[in-house]
């Protein structure tokens, strides 16, 4: 025990220490608040969507809203049925997934297993550029370059359709599918590969029967993240999907996915009005869908990490 010092020299030391502790407590308080903030924002989004969107179901029954095909927000009386939007979202997501999954996984396999280091180092930045292109630029390219091509290639009335939107969306999902799949493939331990070669398998046979199955959950997560991206994308589909209100029966029909439906109408909507509520209701549904998809993907990724943790 240090010798007792006179009161006058002990006080400044203690006071200083107390101030440190107080200041530190304050900072720690702020940090704690910041931690809560992320929950607060998420809860805020949920709360707002519920508050503004649920009333839509008092005006239109949930059944009619979800399965009705008439969306006439500015007529009197207005009717709200979102089947065409929902089907449109399904179509563009389907097209985007059908294109981006095989190509993305194949590319990931190439980069992770086959490509020489130099090739990897050249290709990866290009994929990062793709990931960085803003969605409005993609929509612009789709409008200017792709839609006339699609129109003439498929002999359509107009190139503004689900197919064009789906192709542009697939470009936007590719980077995430490739990156997560590649990580998954690399996480497969080398021992597995060595064992396979030891049994006489070729590299391709190893990839096909060992690596990909081993990385399957990660690849599944990658696909889900890509799907989530496609479902939630707004600008691209707003600009090139066509905006027709009929329920689309083919990917070459002009269509209006849910995100575009919200963006098209929200400017018009007066706070608290019927159209405002209906649009928030669509936002709610969209939120729930993308939430589910992303949550499942995250769970799958966690499981994969644990599977190969050493």
């Amino acid at each position, binding site marked *: 025990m240090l010798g007792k010092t006179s009161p006058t020299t002990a006080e400044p030391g203690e006071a200083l220490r107390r101030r440190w502790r107080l200041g530190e407590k304050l900072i720690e308080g702020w940090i704690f608040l910041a931690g809560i903030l992320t929950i607060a924002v998420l809860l805020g989004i949920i709360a707002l969507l519920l508050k503004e969107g649920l009333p839509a179901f008092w005006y239109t029954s949930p059944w009619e809203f979800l399965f009705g095909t008439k969306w006439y927000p500015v007529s009197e009386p207005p009717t709200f049925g979102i089947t065409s939007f929902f089907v449109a979202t399904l179509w563009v997501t389907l097209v985007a997934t059908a294109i981006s999954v095989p190509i993305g996984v194949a590319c990931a396999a190439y980069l992770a297993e086959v490509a020489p280091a130099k090739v990897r180092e050249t290709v990866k930045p290009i994929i990062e550029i793709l990931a960085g292109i803003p969605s409005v630029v993609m929509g612009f390219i789709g409008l200017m370059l792709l839609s006339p091509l699609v129109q003439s290639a498929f002999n359509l*009335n107009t190139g503004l359709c689900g197919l064009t939107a789906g192709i542009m969306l697939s470009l936007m999902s590719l980077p995430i599918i490739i990156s997560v799949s590649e990580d998954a493939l690399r996480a497969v331990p080398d021992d597995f590969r060595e064992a396979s070669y030891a049994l006489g398998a070729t590299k391709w046979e190893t990839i096909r029967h060992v690596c990909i199955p081993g990385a399957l959950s990660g690849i599944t997560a990658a696909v889900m993240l890509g799907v989530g991206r496609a479902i939630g994308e707004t600008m691209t589909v707003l600009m090139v999907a066509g905006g027709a209100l009929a329920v689309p029966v083919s990917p070459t029909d002009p269509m209006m996915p849910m995100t575009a439906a919200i963006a098209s109408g929200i400017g018009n909507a007066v706070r608290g009005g019927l159209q405002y509520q209906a649009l928030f209701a669509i936002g709610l549904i969209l939120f729930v869908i993308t939430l589910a998809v992303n949550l499942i993907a995250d769970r799958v990724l966690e499981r994969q990490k644990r599977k190969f943790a050493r």
Partner: protein
Amino acid sequence: MRKRLFIILPVVVVVVLVVTIIALGGGGSSIRIIGSNTVTPLSAVWAEEFMETHPEVSIAVSGPGSGVGIAALINGTTDICQASRKIKQSEIDQAEANGVEPYEIQVATDALSVVVHPSNPVSELTIAQLSAIYTGDITNWNEVGGNDVEIVAIARDTNSGTHVFFKEQVVQMKGLPTEDESLEYGGDVLMLPSTEEGVNQVASNPNSIFYPGLGYVTEEVKPLAIKQTADSIGVLPSVQTALDGTYPIARPLLFYTDGEPTGVTKDFIDYCLSSEGQEKVIEVGYVPLE
């Protein structure tokens, strides 16, 4: 190196901030104009001219539709709402419930043009035919005297005042014996988010048809002559035919404010209604008052 980055980056940022703030030269008042895509080219030109003679005023002009402008007026987020359709009674009720008194000022007139691709042999249509095209009853150009190809009917989305005006005047054939308020746009009509996109589509797609305001008609598209009924004479949209009333689908272009305009807003609107301002209307391609 890291420390240097820490210092350089914020310094650059601050310098940029300072330079731009200096460039602004503070103070002054501002006017917000939100609403119709149709009126935007006109307001933009007016705003520019007005700001040259009144440099302390800053005017921001936005689209994308009359509905947006009216909603903004009711929500209190704009000074002037520019509209290409009249405000509805239900909207007036909503406004008054929010403590807003919409005050209407007509600033110009528009001859709503129906355009097709220059190669399209069709050069005139009746309102009834237009209505059928946009409800989806007529789907092939050969039904109206054109080639044997499917019609691609293009419209604006629900944000647009033109969407609503066209629906009431043409699709529902207001004022004609065949008027039918239950008619709606057909499910195959493309609802585009901007007038520019619609015009561009018509210019590049020989089978399409669209209805932009007169100010958007260029040599790349061909306006159709509109016949009130099958026996009338087809009239092409122009300043003349809108002024003398022979063009069947002319409409007022409007400004709405909360109560009578005052202050800078009033000065601006006075300028728009002055003879100088009205000359600009012709330059932009619309129809001046009287």
